[in-house]
C-alpha cells in the first residue's frame, strides 16, 4: 500500500466517520418527525426551516446539562460505558463497502474504510462488544433499574445474535466468502438478465433468512418492539437511567449509529449493496453516449452506486422508525420465546433448505 493510497483511504475513513455522525444527528430529527407524522402531528418545526436546526438545539441542550454522577457509582466505569458504546458503534462501519472503487488515473480508491476478507466476522465481533458499553454503564450506575436494563440488553443481544448468525450462515453458504465487498459484487450479473438487475439480490434467494435477520436486527439495536433494555414503563430509562448530559447523548447517539450500521449491513447482505437497477445500461450510456473519459464514466457509475447504497440505508432507517411507532413492546418472556424457540429453529431449517438447494443445484 503506497503512501498515496493510504492518504486516500484515510480520507475515505474520515468521510465515513463524519457521515455516520451526521446521519445519526439527523436520525434524532427524523425519528421525531416520522413519529409525529405517523401520529397525525407535525413534529419539531420551530428551529430553522422545517425545524432542521433541531439537532443543533438538542446538542446545545445536551452539552449544557448537569454532568451527574450517582452516589456510590464507579466514576471510571460510569464514564467508560458510554465511550465504549460510542466507539464500538463507530468502529463497525469500517468494513462496509459504501461504493465500488473510483479511479483517478492509476490511483484506485475503494469507497470503504478497509477491505478485509473476514468483514462479516469483524462486524459481528464489534457488535458483540457493543453490549459491553451497555453492561458496564448499567452496572456502574449503582441502580437496580439500570442493572436490570443492562442484564436484559446482554441476554437479548446474546440470544438474538445466535439467530442472526445462523441466518447469515445461509448467505455465506451461497456466497462462499465473508468479505462484504465480495458479497456485494456477487449480487449482480454484468452480462446476465438486465431487467432491473434486482433479482440477483440475496433477499430473493434468502427470504426466510432475511426475515430472521430483520427481526434480529431490531433486537440487536434495542429498537421497538424489542426495546426492553430501556423500556420506560418498567425500568424508568433502563441502562441509561442515571445518565445525563452528553454521556446520555453518547448512548442515544450510539444507538442511532448502530441502526445505520445494521441497515448498511442489511443492504449489503440482502439488497445488493451499491448495485442498482439498470446499472450496466447506465454505464453503457455513460461511456458511449456522453463525452466523459472512461475513468470518469466509471466514477459517475460508482458514485451512483454510493447514492443507491445510501438510499437503501435511509429506507432501512425509515423502516426502523416506522416499525417503532407502529408496534408495541414485547414482553420479556415473549421475546425470549421468539428468539430461542422460533427464530433459531427457523434459521437452522433455512440452513438445511439452502444446503439442499445448493446440493441439487437450484441456486448457487
Amino acid at each position, binding site marked *: 500500500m503506497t503512501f498515496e493510497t493510504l492518504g486516500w483511504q484515510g480520507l475515505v475513513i474520515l468521510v465515513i466517520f463524519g457521515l455516520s455522525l451526521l446521519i445519526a444527528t439527523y436520525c434524532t430529527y427524523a425519528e421525531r418527525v416520522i413519529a409525529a407524522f405517523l401520529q397525525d402531528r407535525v413534529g419539531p418545526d420551530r428551529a430553522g426551516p422545517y425545524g432542521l436546526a433541531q439537532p443543533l438545539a438538542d446538542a446545545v441542550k445536551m452539552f449544557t446539562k448537569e454532568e451527574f454522577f450517582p452516589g456510590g457509582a464507579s466514576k471510571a466505569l460510569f464514564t467508560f460505558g458510554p465511550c465504549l458504546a460510542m466507539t464500538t458503534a463507530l468502529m463497525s462501519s469500517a468494513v462496509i463497502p459504501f461504493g465500488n472503487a473510483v479511479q483517478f488515473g492509476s490511483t484506485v480508491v475503494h469507497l470503504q474504510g478497509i477491505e478485509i476478507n473476514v468483514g462479516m466476522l469483524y462486524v459481528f465481533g464489534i457488535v458483540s462488544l457493543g453490549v459491553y458499553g451497555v453492561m458496564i454503564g448499567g452496572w456502574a450506575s449503582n441502580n437496580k433499574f439500570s442493572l436490570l436494563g443492562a442484564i436484559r440488553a446482554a441476554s437479548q443481544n446474546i440470544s438474538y445474535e445466535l439467530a442472526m448468525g445462523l441466518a447469515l450462515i445461509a448467505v455465506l453458504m451461497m456466497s462462499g466468502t465473508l468479505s462484504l465487498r465480495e458479497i456485494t459484487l456477487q449480487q449482480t450479473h454484468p452480462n446476465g438478465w438486465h431487467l432491473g438487475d434486482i433479482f440477483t439480490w440475496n433477499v430473493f434467494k434468502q427470504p426466510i433468512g432475511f426475515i430472521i435477520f430483520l427481526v434480529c436486527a431490531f433486537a440487536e439495536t434495542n429498537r421497538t418492539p424489542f426495546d426492553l433494555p430501556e423500556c420506560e414503563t418498567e425500568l424508568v430509562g433502563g441502562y441509561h437511567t442515571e445518565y445525563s448530559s452528553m454521556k446520555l447523548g453518547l448512548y442515544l447517539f450510539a444507538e442511532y449509529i448502530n441502526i445505520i450500521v445494521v441497515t448498511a449491513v442489511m443492504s449489503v447482505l440482502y439488497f445488493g449493496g451499491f448495485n442498482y437497477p439498470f446499472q450496466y445500461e447506465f454505464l453503457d450510456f455513460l461511456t458511449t453516449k456522453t463525452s466523459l473519459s472512461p475513468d470518469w464514466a466509471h466514477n459517475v457509475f460508482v458514485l451512483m452506486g454510493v447514492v443507491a447504497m445510501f438510499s437503501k440505508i435511509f429506507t432501512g432507517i425509515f423502516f426502523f422508525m*416506522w416499525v417503532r411507532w407502529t408496534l408495541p413492546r414485547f414482553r420479556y418472556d415473549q421475546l425470549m420465546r421468539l428468539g430461542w424457540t422460533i427464530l433459531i429453529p427457523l434459521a437452522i431449517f433455512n440452513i438445511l433448505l439452502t444446503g439442499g438447494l445448493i446440493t441439487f443445484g437450484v441456486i448457487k
Partner: protein
Amino acid sequence: MQSLSNRAKILEKKPMTLAERAYLPAIFQGLSITLRHFFMKKATIRYPEETRPFSPVFRGLHVLKRDEQGRERCTACGLCAVACPAEAITMVAGERKKGEQNLYREEKYAVSYEINMLRCIFCGLCEEACPKAAVYLQADKMAPPRFERDEFIYGKDRLVEPVSPDTRSKRGIQLTPEQADKLRGQLQTA
C-alpha cells in the same frame, strides 16, 4: 347466570390459525395503517401563525362600547356587577360635569370600571344584564396570558373601545355607514 338485558354475547375463543400465529400479516396490516396516517392531513394548528377559527357566539374579552357619537354608553348602574356570578366586576360611578356631554352619553358614568379576568368565567351574563348595551364579550379576542396577577385586572384603559369607527369592536351595536362617516369627520376636525 341468565342475562336479563339480552345484550350478552357468547365469545368464541378459537385457537389461532397459522397465519395469525406468524404475526407477520398482522404486523404488515399495522404498518399499512400507520403509513396511511403518514400521508394524512395533520391535525396540528401552528398556533402563532395559524389560529383556530372562533365560533361566532364565542365569548371572549370584554369591551365597553361607545355610541355613534363616540361617547361611552356605560352609566355605571352596576347591574353587570350584580349579575356577575364570579363577582369579577367593580366600578365607581361619577356625575357627568358640564362640558363632558361629548364624552359620556348619560348623566352618570363610570369613573373607573374594572374586570378581573382571573375571576371572570366568560358566561356573558353581564352582557345580558346591561340596559345600555354597553358591555359586550368579543367573539374574536381572548384575554391574553400574563405573568403578573395584577395585569389581569382590566381597567377602562383596556376595556373601552376606541373612538375611531374603523378600529371599533365588531360586537354589539354597530354604526351605520352614515354615522361612521360623521364620526370620522368629527375626529378630523377635532
